[in-house]
């Protein structure tokens, strides 16, 4: 079902998504002082998906997400998040939503355990705070005041608060900014675990293309208030069908060849060089190449 829908959507932009999608957006527009910040965005995010929204600063990423989160009002378009319009949804709608926001530095004087336990009180069927603290890997720091935590640990508290109410949909706004590489890997594992075994839909915004590639089932690129591409990271923007580049060493010099048929080219080369090709690499455009082309071509 989802296979068909996704392929159709990427092929001709037809919008045939069933209403059971976690997020459904049609023709979303938002103006700031008459200037469109979001200018006709369509989005479908299926249940259980990790979906990444990419885009440069000022492209409308945050505005879009804040409208989905119910923090801002739209000027036009249809928005359905977990079956309800965020602008009109009753407070109980938030039982299904988890938020991990940017730049929070609140509750500095509380301990991790106190903070997570406090937020558990807001929900009818929360997870066990100790289990959530374990899930985000903070058990050893549970008694520490939040003020004393590192940036990465602090972010994990935000995630713990985000998932304490068993959300069906979790919003993560640039979750790993400022992380060291190891902390980032651990964080990715946590998100994969949430999506995979806890059946949480995740909408992620990020600046890091490697993050989107490592985590997301699908990514959307937003530029100048519009979605310019949607698809799995491996095929985004025709990436998998783009010419491949062969690079090898022959006669002491680096040689390159760009071709739509790298397998045949490598085979021919192998025969010509008599077996193993010295220093051979075959590459496609990286997600970053595709992304830069997409945001460059639309602005």
């Amino acid at each position, binding site marked *: 079902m989802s296979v068909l829908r996704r392929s159709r959507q990427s092929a001709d932009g037809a919008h045939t998504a069933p209403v059971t999608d976690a997020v459904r957006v049609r023709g979303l527009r938002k103006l700031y002082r008459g200037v469109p910040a979001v200018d006709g965005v369509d989005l479908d995010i299926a249940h259980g*998906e990790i979906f990444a929204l990419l885009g440069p600063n000022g492209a409308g990423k945050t505005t879009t997400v804040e409208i989905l989160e119910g923090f801002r009002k739209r000027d036009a378009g249809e928005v359905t998040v977990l079956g309800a319009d965020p602008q009109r949804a009753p*407070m109980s709608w*938030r039982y299904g939503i988890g938020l991990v926001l940017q730049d*929070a530095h609140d509750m500095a004087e509380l301990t991790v355990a106190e903070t997570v336990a*406090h937020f558990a009180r*807001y929900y*009818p069927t929360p997870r066990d705070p100790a289990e959530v603290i374990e899930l985000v890997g903070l058990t050893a720091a549970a008694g520490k005041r939040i003020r004393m935590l590192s940036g990465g640990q602090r972010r994990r508290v935000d995630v713990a608060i985000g998932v304490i*109410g068993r959300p069906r949909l979790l919003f993560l706004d640039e979750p790993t900014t400022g992380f060291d590489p190891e902390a980032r890997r651990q964080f990715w594992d946590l998100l994969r675990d949430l999506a995979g075994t806890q059946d949480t839909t995740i909408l992620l915004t990020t600046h890091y293309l490697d993050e989107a590639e490592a985590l997301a089932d699908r990514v959307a690129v937003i530029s100048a208030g519009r979605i310019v591409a949607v698809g799995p990271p491996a095929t985004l923007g*025709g990436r998998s069908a783009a010419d491949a580049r062969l690079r090898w060493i022959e006669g002491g010099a680096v040689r390159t060849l760009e071709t739509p048929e790298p397998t045949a080219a490598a085979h021919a080369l192998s025969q010509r060089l008599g077996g193993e090709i010295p220093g051979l690499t075959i590459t496609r455009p990286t997600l970053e190449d595709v992304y830069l082309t997409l945001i460059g071509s639309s602005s």
Partner: protein
Amino acid sequence: MTTQPATHSPRASGAAGAAGAAGAAWVRPVGRPPALWRLVLARGALELRQFFRERDAVVFTFALPAVLLILLGSIFDTQLNDRAIVPGIPASQLLTAGMIAAGIASTSFVNLAIGICSDRDDGTIKRLRGAPMPPIAYFLGKVILVLVTALAEVAIVMTVGIALFDLRLPTDLGHWLTLAWVFLLGVTGCALLGVAMSSVPRSIRSAAPVVNLPFLVLQFISGIFIVPITELPSLFQHVAALFPLKWMAQGFRSVFLPDSGVALEPAGAWEHGRIALVLSAWCIGGLILCLTTFRWRSRRDS
């Protein structure tokens, strides 16, 4: 983009397909939603815990009116010794009553205005708006914080007055009742004004000066530092009569001074009816101001 083949990870389609069957119903609280009063108590407990853990802030917040009272009480008593305005009433007792009023205004108006400004700045409010918590629970939690800190402040200033300046606690129920209603109306009015005031500073960095200057001016013209209030130019007295602080101080003087002290009042009477009227009007006006001007976001961020 148009030539894209339909390939994606097996995990993705599997998860999406499985969850698709779960449907879109979001209202599925298996347990009962938490009762409002529980949320209010939880918020109040959290506010108190956070407040009392900022040790230096706690010490200096509570010490300020007490230290001011000790300084002003000592200075004015020596100056006014030989021209006691009304026999048997030292200036320090007038100052104590005024400082109780100022202490209440400080813990409600000033601390709430700056505290909410800080909540807006550090992400507290945004996080709470994104949580299934009714805004009223946030405000009532603040009310608990203000009530506890204001009561503690009153107790401290009263103790200084009793220990150093021969202040006497009221001995009859009537005076205690007056103390109670002036306290409650004063806290409520000042707290609501504090909530409204929290929208004025552009950021947390400007909050303290923006809130403190008007409060300092109000204390001067309301006869908190200069006693009796009739010593002040009449213009000041008239302006001060528009705000709650002067009336709170007057109410507390009626509680703690002997009956002969009434001669020091501008009207020659305690004016309990008018005190109740003005403070109630500020409670209503403050509520309207809150409802019409309160902003969840800081002005920089709107």
